């Protein structure tokens, strides 16, 4: 497989195309990073390395850099960008949680505080709020979106974890309502994720299925939603998302009347999916729960 990827890399027009043509595994536990490194070596300059740890100071991050220097002194700093989706509605709210926990028995694990910068975008991709906060070593940071920007509705949330190492600094999103909470992790910036699919779409009448697509890229995203039953294609719908924008749709909005169309329904996004990411939420109206799964 590696030989095939290395052979195809010099002529592949993009990292995503390389994954698609070679069939490189690009799921949650896949090899996107390694494939991208192969591609980067074969096509110097072709890969957007902006999601990699970026050395500071950069002019545009000067304020962040100064805050960090005050907090931790002159340790070399790296920047880890992560992204997710928030919602702030009366029936469903969002809390972002990240932590910076000790790691016993590891000598080179640094115990300096980290800096966390959170940026919110609205559904159309416009930046609407920004917050920077020091996360002391050993602590957990839980940020309520409603406190950060009460008028926010839903959209892309980007946060930068500024510390020499990422360590435990992954972030999880909690979407909660009265009597229910659900959680899943963010996406590390820039991971190519391949296909996004709900392998078995629940069709029970008291369940609303919501598909969430987020485009963290600077370019528009285009694809098609495809509905299949038992592998047989039933319907296609074009889909487009502006840069930094997000879409929160029910399955009924994407494919009206989908419940009547089959027993074994699968929905997926068909296209060069690049670095977008998707979640789905199942809302049970009878027992009043929301449940999330990343795709």
């Amino acid at each position, binding site marked *: 497989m590696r030989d095939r990827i290395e052979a195809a890399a010099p002529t592949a027009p993009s990292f995503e195309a390389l994954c698609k043509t070679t069939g490189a595994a690009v799921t949650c*536990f896949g090899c996107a*990073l390694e494939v991208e490194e192969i591609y980067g070596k074969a096509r110097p300059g072709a890969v957007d390395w902006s999601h990699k740890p970026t050395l500071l100071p950069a002019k545009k991050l000067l304020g962040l850099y100064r805050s960090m220097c005050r907090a931790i002194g002159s340790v070399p700093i790296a920047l880890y960008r992560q992204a997710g989706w928030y919602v702030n509605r009366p029936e469903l709210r969002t809390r972002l949680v990240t932590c910076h926990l000790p*790691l016993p028995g590891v000598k080179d694990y640094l115990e300096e505080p980290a800096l966390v910068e959170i940026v919110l975008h609205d559904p159309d991709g416009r930046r609407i709020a920004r917050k920077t906060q020091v996360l002391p070593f050993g602590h957990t940071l839980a940020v309520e979106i409603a406190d950060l920007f009460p008028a926010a509705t839903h959209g892309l949330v980007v946060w930068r974890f500024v510390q020499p190492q990422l360590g435990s600094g992954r972030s999880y999103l909690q979407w909660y309502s009265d009597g229910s909470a659900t959680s899943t992790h963010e996406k590390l910036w820039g991971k190519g994720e391949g296909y996004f699919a709900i392998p078995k779409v629940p069709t029970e009448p008291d369940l609303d299925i919501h598909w969430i697509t987020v485009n963290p890229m600077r370019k528009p995203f285009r694809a098609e939603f495809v509905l299949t039953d038992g592998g047989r294609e039933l319907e296609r719908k074009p889909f487009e998302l502006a840069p930094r924008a997000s879409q929160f749709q029910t399955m009924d909005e994407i494919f009206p009347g989908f419940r009547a169309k089959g027993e074994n329904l699968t929905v997926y996004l068909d296209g060069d999916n690049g670095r977008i990411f998707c979640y789905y939420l199942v809302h049970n109206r009878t027992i009043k729960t929301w449940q999330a799964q990343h795709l």
Partner: protein
Amino acid sequence: MASAAPVASAWAPGYAWGRESADFKTRLNFVPRVFARDEEETFSGEIHLYTGHAIASKKFILPEHSCAKELRVPLREVLDKVGLESFDGLLEIHAHSTTKVPDPRLAKFLEVWVDVASRDGKFYISYPAVPNRGQFFKVFTGQYQVWPGILMKGPMTSDVVIINANRKPVPIRLALFNADGESLESLEMEAPFRSVVQHRLEEEIPGARALLEKTGGVGSLRAWFKFKLNAYVMFRNRETGTVSSFDHLSPYFRR
């Protein structure tokens, strides 16, 4: 063409929690766009069922099947074939291309999604079965994993589901941290071999809720496994018994 045995053994099995009884139903979903790398291929495999030492393992042979076609396997069908009435334990899902060996440096499993639902609607999880080995994350250690956002607030509480796919028991410890860094740790426990165990954190760590409530009911989990295990956090409503969240822990990243 490579012979069938080396091809099959080159692919890693995925592991998942399966439940089938009067109250629960489980289904395995082999869906082309998620599962297959090459739709021209065919796949085959086996499903092994374990409940630690309680019963001997049982094996179900998957029919050879085109990667371009869906295959849905209700666990009920598997149990009927192997002669079990009910099941609550570890599914070891071997699914492999019939002709191609994966590159050992790449993820070497085919992604099977498993959904488990209770008949009363209070329990529903849908997630991919994943291997216990072969990930490419750069991590500090395979022994510790974290989960930011443990919740013990109002009716909501958090459980940890630990899948031990190994052939031997694995010592484990679970530590809870509140937002200010105060912590409590469980006693050392054992994850039984070839098993799935649901740990109720409020029972395993006395004082857990009081610790987290000092900082708004939110904190983090750090799990220590002597050998790397697959583990998930589940949110449960204590009053209704409803489960509304199920996601995996995260390693300490070295990047």
